[in-house]
């Protein structure tokens, strides 16, 4: 059986999203504070009870030259009165703070969507930088959208005039003016934001007041400018039906950090984090560095290798060693990962994947390190791999990684990606009492007279004992050279290497993981969409829509990439067809084919952007005839 690779077509890419939700994109220069504006708007939506998902998309340069096309920073939020799993396909509203932001973002805007543009920035110089021959606000090139042009720069300057700020500082309040208008548009409460500004600028009350004034002015503009005449009114997006409880927003980086701390506490261990700055993993280091009271030590090492080597050293000494990085850094850690596998010490390695290879796309998302995670070391070097599906899911995945690492004495790789790291979503605060502790017992029993301690003796799970240096009577040496079974002494013999290789494999394959669940649908259908990681959102929505249309399609989302759930093979074989959407060129697809000899068909996207719902929906649709029957297998 051959299978065709489905490429996303432009027609699919411009279809409509759902009506119960609104998608807003803030776009501006990387110095315009768009990420902050988006973050605060997110909070207001969350406080209003909407379900939501966000997609921050920013350039790799810290301060790219002002006004340029590559310096555009954008933040998209999808919020609604229904369950939201993605940041939305096409925006309903685009806020463009300059010509470059308009140019790079307007093609995504839904036909009939609203553009709010700061005409104060549409001057000759900025138009040239954005490579506009004519001012798009003045000709009819934007005719298929609704256009609201305001001189936000001027309006902001007027609003903050009483505070005597310099021109540059005053213009920095532009984003708050814009946010004020956006809050009016969606009838949101300004008070939490006012409080936030007061806290943020506690040391500079003038700046706090200026920003608040700008915010209020933007809001007042909406109220008084009679925008209704232009067909622009307030939109009410009611609260979404969610489980009752206490909520907050989290990014994946927050949630992983807290999950690692929770995991270490459940294991009754101190946590040692060895890290080296890299986008987009650094946020975890920043978060953990502030949590010393949980027995956390953070160490900013001299390089990626030292980061993992120090973490392994800490694990050897009896703490939970953790290191995080992104693809290029994980590549550098490869040899030390092998050492962790050989010495069978617990270690958690987080890979916040980004576009590759090499430096690739540092701030863009991709899922292309699955091979690296599962296979990317010299020798037969198996380790468990877990993939997180959402910002909130990162918490439980981190705890699961700690559990496996400490219960089986093995390094564990946890995969997230740039999108999960940065995107925020509402999170129902867990009750920590619901998590069962899994305390570690260090081996301290001194062998009887005449017997020797065996550092590579194994229990029924094939786990070896964890002995802290400093323990009397259990002196031993470990290292990267092949070990004799039991004694751990150097042993190059053929039979021993065969046996130890088998043990390392069997230990990992024997890890106790839950059976694979089905997210939507049931076993034995016509088509199953199989995903992993951050494609969870778009796959969920696409399958939901397809099922509403009566198509027999199910969704399976794999958390345990290695070892795979024991029932997964039978489950996959129960469907007629298997579709695997991935933000890579087909890595999970290959593993599934290899492990289960099934005809998994890839749907690939490596544009640095997450999947859109309709891209997957269209791919699903292509499997079915008009009467809902599955098409014959294509050549």
């Amino acid at each position, binding site marked *: 059986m051959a299978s065709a690779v489905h490429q996303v077509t432009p027609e699919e890419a411009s279809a409509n999203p759902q009506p119960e939700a609104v998608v807003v994109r803030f776009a501006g220069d990387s110095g315009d504070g768009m990420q902050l504006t988006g973050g605060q708007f997110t909070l207001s939506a969350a406080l209003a009870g909407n379900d939501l998902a966000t997609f921050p998309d920013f350039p790799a340069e810290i301060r790219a030259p002002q006004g340029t096309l590559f310096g555009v920073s954008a933040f998209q939020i999808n919020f609604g009165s229904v369950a939201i799993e993605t940041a939305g396909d096409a925006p309903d509203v685009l806020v463009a703070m300059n010509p470059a932001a308009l140019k790079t973002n307007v093609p995504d805007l839904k036909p009939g969507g609203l553009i709010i543009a700061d005409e104060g920035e549409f001057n000759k110089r900025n138009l040239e930088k954005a490579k506009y021959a004519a001012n798009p606000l003045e000709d009819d090139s934007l005719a298929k959208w609704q256009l609201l042009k305001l001189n936000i720069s001027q309006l902001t300057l007027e609003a903050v005039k009483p505070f005597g700020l310099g021109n540059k500082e005053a213009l920095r309040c532009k984003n708050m003016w814009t946010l004020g208008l956006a809050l009016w548009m969606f009838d949101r409460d300004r008070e939490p934001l006012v409080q936030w500004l007061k806290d943020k600028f506690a040391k500079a009350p003038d700046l706090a007041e200026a920003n608040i004034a700008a915010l209020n002015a933007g809001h007042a503009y909406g109220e008084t400018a009679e925008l209704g005449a232009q067909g622009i009114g307030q939109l009410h997006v009611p609260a979404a039906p969610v489980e009752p409880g206490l909520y907050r927003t989290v990014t994946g980086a927050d949630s992983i950090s807290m999950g690692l701390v929770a995991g270490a506490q459940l294991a009754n261990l101190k946590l040692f984090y060895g890290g080296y700055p890299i986008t987009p993993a650094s946020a975890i280091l920043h978060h953990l560095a502030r949590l010393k009271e*949980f027995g956390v*030590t953070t160490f900013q090492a001299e390089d990626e*290798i030292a980061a993992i080597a*120090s973490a392994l050293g*800490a694990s050897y*000494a009896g*703490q939970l060693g953790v290191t995080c990085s992104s693809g290029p850094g994980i590549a550098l850690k490869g040899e030390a990962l092998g050492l962790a596998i050989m010495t069978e010490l617990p270690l958690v390695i987080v890979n916040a994947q980004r576009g590759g290879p090499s430096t690739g796309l540092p701030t863009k998302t991709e899922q292309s390190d699955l091979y690296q995670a599962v296979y990317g070391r010299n020798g037969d070097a198996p380790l468990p791999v877990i993939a997180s599906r959402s910002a909130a899911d990162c918490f439980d995945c981190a705890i699961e990684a700690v559990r496996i690492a400490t219960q089986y004495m093995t390094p564990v790789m946890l995969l997230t990606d740039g999108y999960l790291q940065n995107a925020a979503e509402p999170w129902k605060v867990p009750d920590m009492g619901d998590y069962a502790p899994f305390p570690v017992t260090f081996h301290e029993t001194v062998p009887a007279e005449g017997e020797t301690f065996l550092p590579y003796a194994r229990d029924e799970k094939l786990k070896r004992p964890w002995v802290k240096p400093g323990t009397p009577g259990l002196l031993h040496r470990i290292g990267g050279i092949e070990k004799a079974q039991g004694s751990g002494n150097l042993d190059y013999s053929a039979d021993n290497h065969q046996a130890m290789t088998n043990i390392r494999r069997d230990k990992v394959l024997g890890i106790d993981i839950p059976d694979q669940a089905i997210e939507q649908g049931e076993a034995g259908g016509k088509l199953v969409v199989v995903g992993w990681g951050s494609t969870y959102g778009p796959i969920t929505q696409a399958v939901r829509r397809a099922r509403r249309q009566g198509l027999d399609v199910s969704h399976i989302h794999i958390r345990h990439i290695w070892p795979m759930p024991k029932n997964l093979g039978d489950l996959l074989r129960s469907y007629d067809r298997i579709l695997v959407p991935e933000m890579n060129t087909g890595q999970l697809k290959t593993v599934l084919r290899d492990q289960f000899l099934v005809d998994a068909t890839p749907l690939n996207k490596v544009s640095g952007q997450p999947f859109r719902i309709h891209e997957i929906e269209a791919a699903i649709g292509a499997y079915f005839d008009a009467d809902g029957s599955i098409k014959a297998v294509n050549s």
Partner: protein
Amino acid sequence: MNEITTIRPSTPKDWETDQEVRWCPGCGDYAILKAVQRTMPEIGATPENTVFISGIGCSSRFPYYMETYGFHTIHGRAPAVATGVKLANPDLDVWIITGDGDGLSIGGNHTMHLLRRNLDCQVLLFNNEIYGLTKGQYSPTSRVGTRSPSTPFGSVDRPARPCAFALGSGARFIARGIDVHKNLPSVLKAAHAHRGAAFVEIFQNCIVYNDDVFAPFTEKANAGHQLWLEHGQPMVFAGGTKGIALDTERLTLKVVDIADGDTSGVIVHNVTNRAIAHMLVEMPFGPFPMALGVLYDDPAPTFESAVVAQNAAASEGKVADLQKLVSKGQTWMVEKEPHAI
């Protein structure tokens, strides 16, 4: 410090393992191993609190032969592993065993940062100016013109000087020893007594690939070319007939003859004088003798103690409450499920 009650003092034999030592017959590593095993009882070390950590190379097999805790890691990374060990448990007595290739080539970065941070440990760098385990290629400390399998026409790059590198990296203790010399245990004792990163370059003879490379000062007949430094004592060598003085006009060192034991004008060694240390690590062998013993010893606060203190200060008055942690930030309560529209 409290008196530690021991059942009996250890002997060098107690520090030997049951493992067969696998260095070439006549290798200088044997002598260093014996010197370390002789040193351990004298410094009152306890095996369970002692950890030997090594990288890759001939020298890095060392931990297998010490009856202590030991970690034979990967090429060049021993300082990084040691940093994690020491930060996780500052009570452990950490010894790093490395070589000229391991510590200055593939692991040069880690050596630099370990010394800069001043982790409390001993770094024993076995310098044989050659790659032994990979069969004789020239190393970063090999002299210009070294013929080896990878440099059949002689090496062309200038060698690194381990002690100058260490001092430049910020090390607060620098010493030199010779594998077979009787003074090695006293150098090791001084290194152990120093709180902070103690860097010791040990001239180690590779009998197979670089035999006698240090003979011009290690041979008995050449002992006159050894300058054994002692704090508070004048820098004299060659049986007290020569000394090191400062050429005040050119601000360099010079060799002076000593007549009738009159050492006036000869520099009195002060281990805390960083300027002298700089001149000693740069002193070229040939015109000058080889400076041995403790070149520099001026303790500074250690990395792990600073980390421990900061962790404690940052935790003060805070409770490790997980529930509070996950509930932080701006939260909202959903009382009951709103009606779907």
